[in-house]
């Protein structure tokens, strides 16, 4: 395992291009694009203000830099450095900006969710979508980039509109049976849309692409409900994490629950491996933690899935066998974790100077080298799964993972407790 030198970074803005060739990072108002292999600066763009959000277009030709404070979006081309594009939302303000899947349209959400403006880079046309709902996850694109689902709110009722991304035509418009819709998410195959209600009520609805209601699921009533929802990459399972500390897996045939994963305080099954991070001077008081509000997130791998519960622990379930597979207990709260895009390998960071890697074979932690403490706050995998970017508050570095046989001296095997 090798580490690159440390580069400057601001507000954790560092992203690999979708084709895996480039790495874009932001330093204040400058956008730096590097080659992933050599890490040499290929382009350097200067924006008008501090950048608050960046996003690569799907074809890796353009980068969008949003400056919400100024209501500005600047777009840069990688092929033509002299090309520029600036979108000013003016007094309407800007709260969110994103690419359409074709990489030629930009969707800007104005302040107060008044409307969504669709700017085209190909033509002069500008489209407006009114009544977008101000919610956690109001826009979702299908994986093939053909359709967009948008949560709307008009006349105190929730609606979902499905647009065709090629010409921004409305394909379907239907109301949903929700009190206060919180999120929508397409299945990876683009045929089923999951819609879930506010956390006050446990309710998840599944709609077909043509707007038919396929199924409704509610695990219980009268209690805080859904916290997070994730599709399995095969569209076969839908994982729903809720405030009762459980993950429920729904199947795609009957949309009924297949299984339910709890987070028991004590794990008795000897098959389950529990990794406990242990310092040389062991800190006690780690064994029993209260149940603070869990943050849930499901992994994208077919074989396993993970979720925080105790913020210090990561739980990994095996979906093939439908059982708990491993639990990783960290000393400090987990800040971020991400699955390797290529193999069942999980990278975890806890805001310390260590990087934790888990795979079914075992678990290890790596000290990020360099002077001073490199507090890893976030991380993102490269497409190929053999490198990843580690982000701290104002620096980032790349970590190159070679073959598993080569383990540097910095690696320290964590003690496995069963």
């Amino acid at each position: 395992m090798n580490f690159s030198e440390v580069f400057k970074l601001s507000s954790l803005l560092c992203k690999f291009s979708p084709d895996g060739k480039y790495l874009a990072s932001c330093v204040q108002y400058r956008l730096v694009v590097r080659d992933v292999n050599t890490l040499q600066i290929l382009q350097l763009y200067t924006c008008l203000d501090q950048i608050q959000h960046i996003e690569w277009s799907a074809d890796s030709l353009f980068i969008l830099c949003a400056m919400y404070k100024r209501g500005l979006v600047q777009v840069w081309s990688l092929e033509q450095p002299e090309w520029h594009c600036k979108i000013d939302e003016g007094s309407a303000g800007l709260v969110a900006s994103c690419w359409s899947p074709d990489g030629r349209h930009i969707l800007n959400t104005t302040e107060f969710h008044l409307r969504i403006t669709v700017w085209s880079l190909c033509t002069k046309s500008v489209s407006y979508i009114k009544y977008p709902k101000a919610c956690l996850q109001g826009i979702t694109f299908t994986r093939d980039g053909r359709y967009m689902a948008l949560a709307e709110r008009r006349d105190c009722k929730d609606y979902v509109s499905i647009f065709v991304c090629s010409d921004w035509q409305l394909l379907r418009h239907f109301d949903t049976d929700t009190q206060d819709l919180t999120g929508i998410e397409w299945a990876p195959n683009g045929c089923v849309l999951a819609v879930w209600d506010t956390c006050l009520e446990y309710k998840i609805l599944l709609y077909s692409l043509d707007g038919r209601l396929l199924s409704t699921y509610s695990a219980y009533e009268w209690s805080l409900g859904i916290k997070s929802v994730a599709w399995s990459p095969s569209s076969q399972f839908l994982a729903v994490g809720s405030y009762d500390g459980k993950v429920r897996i729904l199947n795609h045939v009957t949309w009924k629950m297949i299984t339910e994963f709890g987070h028991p305080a004590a794990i008795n099954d000897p098959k389950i491996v529990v990794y406990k991070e242990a310092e040389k001077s062991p800190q006690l008081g780690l064994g029993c933690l209260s149940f603070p509000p869990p943050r849930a997130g499901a992994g994208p791998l077919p074989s396993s899935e993970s979720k925080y519960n105790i913020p210090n622990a990561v739980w990994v379930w095996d979906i093939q066998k439908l059982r708990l597979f491993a639990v990783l207990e960290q000393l400090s709260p987990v800040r971020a974790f991400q699955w390797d895009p290529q193999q069942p390998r999980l990278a975890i960071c806890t805001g310390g100077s260590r990087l934790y890697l888990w795979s079914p074979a075992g678990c290890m932690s790596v000290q990020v080298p360099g002077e001073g403490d490199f507090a890893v706050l976030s991380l993102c995998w490269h497409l190929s799964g053999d490198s990843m970017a580690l982000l701290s508050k104002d620096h980032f570095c790349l970590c190159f993972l070679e073959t598993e046989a080569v383990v540097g001296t910095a690696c320290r095997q964590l003690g496995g407790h069963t």
Partner: protein
Amino acid sequence: MGDWMTVTDPGLSSESKTISQYTSETKMSPSSLYSQQVLCSSIPLSKNVHSFFSAFCTEDNIEQSISYLDQELTTFGFPSLYEESKGKETKRELNIVAVLNCMNELLVLQRKNLLAQENVETQNLKLGSDMDHLQSCYSKLKEQLETSRREMIGLQERDRQLQCKNRNLHQLLKNEKDEVQKLQNIIASRATQYNHDMKRKEREYNKLKERLHQLVMNKKDKKIAMDILNYVGRADGKRGSWRTGKTEASFFLRNEDEMYKILLNDYEYRQKQILMENAELKKVLQQMKKEMISLLSPQKKKPRERVDDSTGTVISDVEEDAGELSRESMWDLSCETVREQLTNSIRKQWRILKSHVEKLDNQVSKVHLEGFNDEDVISRQDHEQETEKLELEIQQCKEMIKTQQQLLQQLATAYDDDTTSLLRDCYLLEEKERLKEEWSLFKEQKKNFERERRSFTEAAIRLGLERKAFEEERASWLKQQFLNMTTFDHQNSENVKLFSAFSGSSDWDNLIVHSRQPQKKPHSVSNGSPVCMSKLTKSLPASPSTSDFCQTRSCISEHSSINVLNITAEEIKPNQVGGECTNQKWSVASRPGSQEGCYSGCSLSYTNSHVEKDDLP
């Protein structure tokens, strides 16, 4: 009561004794007997009373007393003391027998009375003691009653208090319930109000949004703009098209079409998957059924003898199923038609299997109970020992690993450079070894090669000899021909023609030879043919050597047409392999260049296969 009885009993018995003594005394004294007879009274008699009674009858009043007694006795129902008078005037005489009878009866009566009196007295005593006992009981009970009455009063008091409390609690509960109801109502009303408010607020918010929208959007905000250098092409290379009213509908239709296509594809995909899964499951089911039948049918023949109705039907079922199985196509039918049959048969089979297994289990448990305990214990001990052993091993292994890890770490941290050099050394050593191996292989090859070469040279020498012989023969033949030429002229002309034809088509012949070589290959092998031949044929596919060979052939043919004739003739007849071989050897020997080519071919064949190399002489 009992106690009392035992205490009083002796007293009673002594009393009765005195009484019996007394009676016996009275019996003994004749005076008392007399007095009893006279008085007929039931009063207990005493000795001094006797003198008093004697005053009743004196000498003077015998008659009177007798009559008085008679009167008295008749009134008591006794027979008269007097004899029955025969006449009215006659004085009645005292009947002694009657008197005695009366007296006896009176005595019996007296005794009876005495007995009765005794009984009465004892009863009286008993009753008195009973009475005492009962009185004490009574007093006790009275006390008890008193205490219980007091208790009852206390309890009643408590009950009253509790009831009071209960009433209070009920009241409280009612109040609470009311409160809850009230609160629920309040909550509900609040909720509705909240919802209402929310809606109102949202409406207001919407209105405000609308206002804002109008204000911000409609006033031509100069700032809302896109400043772009030049428009870029679309990702898919198409040009952006403007929508017009006419195209809108078609666009929409197209989108719909696409959407449905996508959905359809998805459903088709899923259906396919489900079908596949179904087919697999069916296969499994079928297999299971087959296995079940095969498992069950042989053993079911035995229970038939035991006259079992259920098994009899089962067998028929099994047979039926076997018949069904032959209709394999049935499985391809849709599930609905087959389902019932299938499930029924499977269920039946399963039941049979289950019963069978249960039977077996029972047997096993019986056997187990009978005499398996000792072994079981032993095996357990073995187990424990084994596990202990294994644990020890694990421990050792762990320690080993630990030490190894430590060593590794030490090596890695302290002697990083050394390790790399060491590693490199290791690699070099490995390489060296490999090279050595290769070298030995190579040497062997070389040896073989040498051997072959020797055989080749030998063959060449032989060839040379043969050639000489041939030359001589040819010379003789030419001589003969020369001699004949003068005599048969027309024959000679024909021969020449033949020669020219052969020489002209020599190239073509060579081509044929070339093409036939691979076909000949199996022949030569099967014959266990001479090595050189096989070698050559093998070398032929390797292009450079073969071409060389061909060239040599053609060269030879140009040299002397007779040689060519020989070769072609023999090669067309593959059975004469030996001769052919010598010919080829000869051709090889004749051209050193071609020999080289041949060698190279040989070496090629070497490298290609080792097995054939071993066949060499």
